[in-house]
């Protein structure tokens, strides 16, 4: 009955080819979707911490899947087994794929051995978002933190990941830093692997 459009039969996922990751949608579409995610989450929580947790969870789901997908597609089925490896994977591969660019910086925590920081001048998700004063230090980057956590956990580098605004002198806007604190088992393993 449909006049237009060649009728295409339903194909099960397992039979569909994996995308090459070249397809794009408009930034607006994503921004509105993300904005709605945040708004919805707000209606389900009653404090900042919970809101962050919800965003993180959403992100983690994305991260875990991205990890599998990218290692397969971009890395030719190589796994990251070392801490720095996985970090740079996040910093470059993951970022490139999801946000179209490599992250601005990846640094090692100065005071703590187990801390690493990925910083971004303007996080894609925060592009249009101004956080009202009364929400304190809340940062929608929690979603991205979740993504990172998802990747790290998935790859066997359990870590606590959080997003923070960090003021930069000479900049009107603070940048966002994703702080990664690895579980000590990870460091132990690293030590063992020498």
């Amino acid at each position, binding site marked *: 009955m449909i006049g237009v459009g060649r009728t295409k039969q339903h194909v099960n996922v397992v039979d569909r080819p994996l995308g090459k990751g070249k397809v794009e949608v408009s930034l607006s579409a994503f921004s509105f979707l993300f904005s709605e995610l945040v708004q919805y989450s*707000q*209606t*389900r*929580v*009653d*404090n*900042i911490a919970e*809101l962050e947790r919800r965003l993180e*969870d959403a992100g*983690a*789901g994305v991260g*875990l899947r991205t990890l599998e997908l990218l290692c397969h597609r971009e890395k030719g089925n190589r796994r990251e087994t070392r801490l720095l490896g996985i970090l740079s994977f996040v910093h470059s591969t993951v970022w490139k794929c999801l946000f179209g660019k490599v992250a601005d910086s990846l640094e090692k925590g100065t005071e703590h051995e187990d801390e690493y920081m990925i910083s971004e001048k303007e996080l894609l998700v925060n592009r249009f978002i101004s956080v*009202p004063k*009364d*929400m304190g230090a809340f940062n929608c980057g929690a979603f991205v933190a979740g993504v990172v*956590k*998802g990747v790290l*956990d*998935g790859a066997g580098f*359990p870590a606590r990941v959080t997003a923070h605004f960090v003021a930069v002198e000479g900049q009107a806007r603070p940048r966002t830093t994703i702080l990664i604190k690895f*579980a000590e*088992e990870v460091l*132990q*393993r690293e030590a*063992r692997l020498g």
Partner: protein
Amino acid sequence: MEPEASIESARMIRVAVVAVGNIPSAQLRDYVALVLRHRVVSLECARLFYKEHQKSPFAQQSWDTGSLCFKFLVGGAPRSPWEDFQANRKCLGVIGLMHCPTTPDIGAAYDHFMAICRAYPSAQEKRCFALYPTDGQVELDEKKRQHLVMFPPDRQMLEYHLQTLMQDFAASLLMAFESWVLHAEPVGAILTTPLDSQASLNSEEVSKAKKRRLGRVQKTIGDYCLLAGSPVDANAHYSTAIDLARLTGDLLWHAGAIEGSVSALVVDRGGLKDPQLEEEVRYRYLEVIQLYHRKTALSFELEATLKLARFLCRKELAGQVVELLMGAVEGSKTLMDASDRLVLNVEVARIFGALGYERKAAFYARQVAQLYQQQDSCWAAMSALQVLTLTAKSYRIQSKAAFSARTNTLMELLHEKDEPSRDSRGQYSSLEVGADGQWSTLQMDILGDMLAAAVRAGDPLSAWSAAARLVRGHYPLITPSAQFGLATALVTAAERLPPGTRCSDPALPFVRLHSYPRLPPELEVVKRFPGKKEWWVGASSVGPFIYTPFTSKGNESENSAEVIWVVGEPVQVLVDLSNPCAFEVYVESICLSVESGEIEAFPVSVVLPPNTSQVLSLSGLPLSVGSLVVRGCIVQCFGVVTEHLFEEAGELVSGVAISDPFRSVGGPRVSQSVAAVVEVMPPLPLLVAEVVGGEGAVVLYEGEIREMHIRLANAGVVPVLEATMTLTGKHKEHVLSLGHDILTAALPLFPGASVVVPVKLKAGQPTTEVEVVGSKGAGVNNVKPAKDPACPMLVIYYAGPPMETRDMKTKAVISPSLPPGRRLALPLQLHVLRGLYLQQARLLSMEVPAQISRYLPDPGACKSEATSPTSTLVKIDPYRGSWGLLLLELELWNATDVLFEITVTVNKGKESVDEELADDGMVNDSLYPSTRIDQNHSARVLIPLERFKLPGLEKAFLARSLAKKYGLTKHDSKARESSERQAKSELNATIEELSSRISVKWHSGRNSAGELPIKDAIREALQASAIEILLPDPLTFGFRLARDCRPSYGDKVKLSEDAVDEQPKSEDSEHVTVTNQGNNDSIVAQELTPIEMLVRNNTREAVTMSLSVTCRDVTGASCLGSSGAKATVLWAGALNGVDVEVPALGEVVHGFALCFLVPGQYTLLGAAVINDPDESLGPNSNLQYPESEPEPLYYSGPPYTVNVTGIS
């Protein structure tokens, strides 16, 4: 093959520890423990007992650091065929343990010991410890028993003695070794192994054997050196042995020697490992293994492999270890001896365990179990069960008992190596499923085996537990028939258990917290907010921010709200039970179990049919103050008592492998967020309320006033210190007053005490119209009580004394000074029925013609002549000729089934208050006779309004009324308006007052009394014709016969007040005269009759006027004045143009006399002409009309009739 063989074991001196005589197992265990303490005896200590007979062969022995190690074989061990090959396999010593108290005949026992010793030919030293000997036994001890050692009886000495004895024992062993070595050296003992062919040796073989012997001796000496705790010497001998063995191609011994040397090396290092050592050891052991392999001494090969593996066992070297172990396992396939295979598997399992490879360990443990199960004996079954229990953990099917009891060595191994591997499989991101329930096939397999083993081993409890875990954890994967099987297994197991046995593993049903039902409102606890007078109004809970973007879900479910219980008051908890299985579950008893608090739980029993779930209400009695957690239920089911924790059910629900047992049987889905902490408060007062006399619902007629008594009793155990009554709900207006003071006076209200609080009710609007209809005849008691929220709530907030903070928990919970209070809500079930309907209220007026008479009935009359009510009804205006009486008529209909009696009472205004007090106050009520209205009848009640005239009014009014009368419209509208407005307001005020002064009280047949709410009705009735009712005419005229027959000419002016005052007395006297005179008011013709005209000024200003009198006959023709005509009436005094000034509210009397010539009826008319109306018309009227000269106002009073009788 040796269990727990390790590289170090080469230095272990093997000693058999055997029980001698009759010895209780407890004692034996005790003694053995004592002996086992002395596994290691330092050479230093041993030296004390060491006597050097000749030069010690152990040149390098380090007396200060070295030590002897024992391996105690409790219960002894069979002789190994390989003793020659490895000295540490020899049983070099025997220790007998004898418990004298239970062994009367020491002699026999000793012989028994010696007999045992015969089984250990290679034993160098024997000791038979006789503990706690009796004196008798001591003395009849003869010398001949060289190995017997009597211990002094007391305990701590015993330990000491044992120590010394062990040291002596060690020392003597050492000496024995020395001698052995010394003797072995030159001669060379015959050292053979089962592998040496016993066949006849040809010459060169014999010579080969000779050569070999040297090597073997060296090796054995090495062994002894090692045993003697001198690795260096050992090493020396071993190396020579190695060379010799290599030369002679004596593979087995070559390997043995190397092993020995490695051991020596390790021992020398004192047990501390470093990579080089490890490397060294590994390298040399591989050679060993090689040699054994070539010699096809399989068990040695494997043993060596295991030794190496155990030695290397370290996470870093996991790879190598695994390799070795796998190799060993591989090799073990060709192992002949079943027990060897068993040992191997056990060892492999242990080492894997040590490596942190639980699952591997578990796997081989299971292999072991299976090997055990192949040999069909109770003992084997037990061991099988034991081993399986160890595997349970790694298959995640542990019995909960396992967490507490870590009995077994392997268990410990697994456990202590456990921690790292645990956290490596640690936290998962929240969106992944938790790690439980899977590998079900394996779990079921193991559990099945455990069940089987347990049954075979005759261990009903384990069997029960296994079955329970199986059915609980895996029912979805178990066929119904198999489920039945398990059920029976449970039952049979239970039969063999003592009743009331506890098991740590719950079976069925699944139990889940459903909810905490709210306490009944009267038991509910109200948090107190300190510092507030109204402590019950909570601080409104605000979000974390001022502007909060978060719309909190709000706690619609009382689960999320905190639960508060009170000590000693029964509570309820709802739980979900579910039985997803194919068999019926009979729960013999189930009751709550709590954490960190005490509760007396009341068990119930319930039957769950197959595949059903049900919500069960469990109750209990909190016993201790503080916070407690209801963590689960104690359930007795299938004959065993188990605790079912709520969160476990939760886990199952969240788990993926097992489908939700509640969902699967169509149970409701509840959020698992319920595990609330319950606060238990110290005892609180408990008020119970009852309405004194009569059941809950009170039925009132509209307007009824009744006092209702409520008894408040404190049923709690602590006094009520503060209580406040408030009213809530609709229809509060029904309640006039609450006996606050009475309640407060009654405080503190101690337990058991009670107070009666009065509540004054005044029924307002009928609550429900239907009641009236429904209650026809049927009586009003059938009005349905309570449920309607319409009735007002009497809410009493009360609280007990501040609690003394006895336990810390509470302090944590709430501010100790303030225990919560309570709320007692008592619905006052008022049902107001229509009593009397006010059909209508209207004004009636009636005219009573006035007659001239000797006197005027006077305003005060009502009081003086209270005797006749009727007369008092009507307050006659003395100056009105015609009585335009105005009556307010109320028509009332009695809709009820009882009769009503109406009394109209008029509350005289302020001025009458005092005298109302003066007489007994009944004055009002008794004023009018009461009217009775039967049911379904209506009646009229008349209320005369005369007496409500205003005392006086402004001239303006006068003017206006006049103007009204004569249609004069010469008023400036503004002036009018203002005066009008004020007048209006004044009017309304008076009407208001009036209507409030009239009250219609009633008594109903059901002796209740009340008042009709008819104020509004009256008001509107009056509003219509207010003017007429309330305003007197500006001027009123009256005529009367003068008192004294002598006419008084001229006018006397006096204030009407005086008149009013004097009237009574003068009047009474007057009466007398009148009565004496016989006839009253009739006037006789042709007689000069003195008459007085009274003119009253009702305005508030003085008025000057000129009066005139006219007299008419029946024809209406004037009888006076027309001088020419034949006058029928003669007169004396002025009848015209009498100028007088009447003071405000005053009156003047103008006297004159008339003489009627003809009898008949005449009419007297008074009239007045007011000269200057202007002033009367208010100041600014002439501004209005500057040019118009003031024209006089003419005013005339009502006609008076005069009857003139002729002379008889």
